[in-house]
Every structure is written in C-alpha cells, then in structure tokens.
C-alpha cells in the first residue's frame, strides 16, 4: 500500500527526487540561459587546488570572483564541505557552481538519512560526476562548472582527489590538482613543492605558496589580501574529519613566504 505526500519517487537520491516530483525546483541553466548571454556579467570563481599530504588531503582556494575584468566578490567561499569527510572546490561560473556544491551536500545527507549509511568516497565522486554531466547543456552555453572533489576514504585509510571535465569525465589524481583561471600556475607551483609525506605545516605552506604563485601570474586570482585581511581557505581532511586553517596561521606563513621573496631594489631602481 503506497503511503505518500503526493510524490512518486521511491529512491535514495535527492537530485532524482527533485527531477521526478519537484521539477520546478531543478536548477536547469541549460534551458534557462539563452545562447548569447553576456557571460562577462556572470561572476566566475578562479583558483582552487587539492593535494595529498601525510594525514590525508588538503583542499584550498582563493576568495576572489570576477565579472569579466571587474571584481564581483572578494570573499567568496569556493571550498565547501559536502559532508564530514569530503569537500568540493569549485571554479567556473559561480552561480551554478555554488548551487551544484549545495545540491551535492544535500544529496549526500539525503542518502545517508534514507539508507542509514554513508556513501563510499568513490560513490560520492561518481554522483558528482553525474551532476557535472547534467550541467553539460549549460556548459555548452558558457556556464562551465569544473569542480575538484577530495576527501578522506575511511575504508582505504587515505586521502583521495578527483578532477572532472565538462562532460562529467572523472579522473582520480594520485598527487595534486588545481583548476580555474590560475590553476595552471598553482599546478606548476605544487609540482615543485609536492611531498606526499609532508606534515601539516609543510602542506599548509605548499598550499599558500601555490595560491600566491597563481595570484602573481593570474590577475583574476585573489591570493592573500593583507590589506583587507581576507585569507584563502585551506582545509585539511583527515581520518578525524575536516579542519580549516585559521587566518592567523595563514597570515604568519604568508609573511614568511613574502620575506624570502622580497628583494632589495636593484636594476633600474633609483639609488
């Protein structure tokens, strides 16, 4: 005997529930966004990265969002926890990306409550890849969302991370990944500093360094804003959950990095 509140859906997925019983709530930018929309007017997130370290995985991102050449937001949060052991870091069109992160979080919580068990980390990554794929029509019109997904795998006892392409392609990375407008520079930086057995402090330093390098080369990446006191987000995901690095800690390490890079004015400078 079916008991119902008017819905038909019987499964464990929140996004499917929306699609079947609450179609009006499904965020479908592919349908809503007419071709030729001026994408310069849509805020875009810039650099996010993830890499493994001794205790698990570090996921970090700067805080800037841009609309074309203008600043849209200086303190956007682009690294978001999707549950106690996984995070999503987003680059690309901020609106759809943040909505995808929010849906992903509800998706995982919904599954856990309906089934009484958490999804495995692989299952979570697979779910996200289906969401990215569902966004393909919007991506074709320019609203590209390319997340990095990372978490601590409680079964395999290790940190893991994935990158995605617009078609929903899912690629597990063994060491590090960075994406967004400054992703290339962040990756170059991580290539040199990466150490799978790095302790917490060294990992934090590598993350800040990579974001500072990206901000140095890519004008759309925010880096560390000492003037306003806006610091990047750096999250550690380990067997005991997610912990976010404090602003003081980031400030201290960033100033150390700056002091090693500062040069005495020479060539061409006035004496």
């Amino acid at each position: 005997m079916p008991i119902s509140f008017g819905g038909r859906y019987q499964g464990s997925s929140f996004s499917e529930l929306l699609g079947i019983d609450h179609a009006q709530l499904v965020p479908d930018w592919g349908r809503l966004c007419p071709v030729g929309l001026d994408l310069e007017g849509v805020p875009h997130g810039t650099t996010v990265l993830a890499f493994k370290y001794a205790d698990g995985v570090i996921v970090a991102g700067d805080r800037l969002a841009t609309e074309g050449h203008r600043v849209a937001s200086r303190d956007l949060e682009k690294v978001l926890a999707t549950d106690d052991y996984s995070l999503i870091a987003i680059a690309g069109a901020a609106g759809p990306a943040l909505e995808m992160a929010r849906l992903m979080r509800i998706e995982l919580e919904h599954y856990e409550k309906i089934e009484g068990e958490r999804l495995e980390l692989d299952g979570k990554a697979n779910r996200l890849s289906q969401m990215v794929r569902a966004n393909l029509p919007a991506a074709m019109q320019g609203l590209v969302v390319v997340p990095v997904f990372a978490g601590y795998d409680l079964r395999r006892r290790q940190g893991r991370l994935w990158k995605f392409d617009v078609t929903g392609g899912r690629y597990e990375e063994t060491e590090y990944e960075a994406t967004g407008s400054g992703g290339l520079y962040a990756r170059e930086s991580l290539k040199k500093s990466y150490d799978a057995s790095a302790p917490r402090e060294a990992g934090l330093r590598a993350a800040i360094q990579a974001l500072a390098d990206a901000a140095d080369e890519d004008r759309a990446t925010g880096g560390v804003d000492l003037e306003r006191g806006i610091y990047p987000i750096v999250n550690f995901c380990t067997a005991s959950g997610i912990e976010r690095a404090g602003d003081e800690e980031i400030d201290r390490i960033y100033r150390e990095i700056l002091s090693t890079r500062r040069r005495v004015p020479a060539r061409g400078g006035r004496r």
Partner: protein
Amino acid sequence: MTMPFYVSPEQVMQDKAEYARKGIARGKSSVTLEYDAGVLLMAENPSSLSKIGEIYDRIAFAGVGKFSEFDQLRKLGVRYADTRGYAYSRDDVRAKGLANAYSQAMGEVFTRELKPLEVEVIVAEVGDDTLAGHERNAIYRVQFDGSISDHKGFCVIGGAAEELGSLLRSEYRDGLPLKEALLLGYRALQRAADREPNVTADNIEVCLLERHRAGRKFRRLDTDTLREHLGT
C-alpha cells in the same frame, strides 16, 4: 447470487480501528523525553533495523508497529524535509508541518484503504537558542487514523503506551539531566517488557537531538556509551 451485506460506516471504522490497535499492541514501545539539553528518543529494539531516525537538523522520527509501514513514513519525512529545506531555508523545516503532513497521509489511508496502517509515529523537534522564537522543543504524536496530538515533557507510543504513560506521569519532571532521563526511559521500557523482562543496553535503540550541537543535531548513541550512562 449473493448480495453484499450492508455494513454501517460506523461499524467499518470501528473494525478498522480495532484491527490497527491490535496490530500496534503486538509490537514494542517507544519513549520520547525532553531533558535539560535536548530531546531523547528510546525504543526497545533487538534488531539492527532502526525504529528511530534523523529527519532534519532539529527533527527526529520514531515509529512503532509494522516496520515496513513506519519506515515508509520515515523516508517520506526525509524527502519532505530535504525538499522544503532546499526550496526555502534550513530553518523553515519544522516538526509541526511534517506532523500535519503525516496526519493527512495517514488519515487518507485510514478512510480510503481496506487495511489501515498499523503504526504510530512521533515527530520530535529540539529548540535552538540561537534562533529567536524557535527555542522550545516540540513533540507530536500521530496515530494510525491520522489523529494528531502535541505533548510536553514526554510521549509514549506502542504496545504498552498506557502503562508507560502512567509511570512517566508520576516520575517525569522538567529539566532532567541526560543520565536521569536515560534511566527513566530505560525503566519505562523495562516495565513495558514485563512479559519478557530482558531489556538491556544491548537491545534498546537510543537517539538524541542535542540542543547545543551545530547544524545536524541528531546523534545515535552506541551500545558502549549507553552502558556507560546506565551504569550496567
């Protein structure tokens, strides 16, 4: 050819109600209590299938009777809450709305279907001191025919609800610390199981809605923690 007998609507309803009550009376009981820092839900449950579940940040569910039926209701509740929280905000998901939805759906089954639901459910909500106007706890009980009632302090559903209710009425007081509330609920469940007095920490299910926890306030107590609290 046989003619169908005329049966009066009163008789039909009475028969259905009796059928449902008998079904529920065969099952075990469940107790929900307010304590000083939240709401406590307990059920006698020797199996690994849960009778108590998380619905949303501040809302929990407990069911007694036929498992397949109240588990369907629990899932409906999760779907209702998550959809509402997604469409509006997390703070807009309230126990009252859900209890009303249960009442509608269960009443509908009772009047339309041949077989009524053999379940009773509790929807409990813990208050949040950081949200003005949402500080109070709420406990709703919905019965097989959709009748709904709200309760202060404690609420019992299931086979021995009457008996447990009288014990709690005489022993419950406001602002019990967790340990004492747990012991009271434990004694109540033991009394309910008088016929087979084997209620121990191993075969009861205990969940909490903790007022001071951030975000999702639901927590399931494992057997070891429970033993510690009960001192057994």
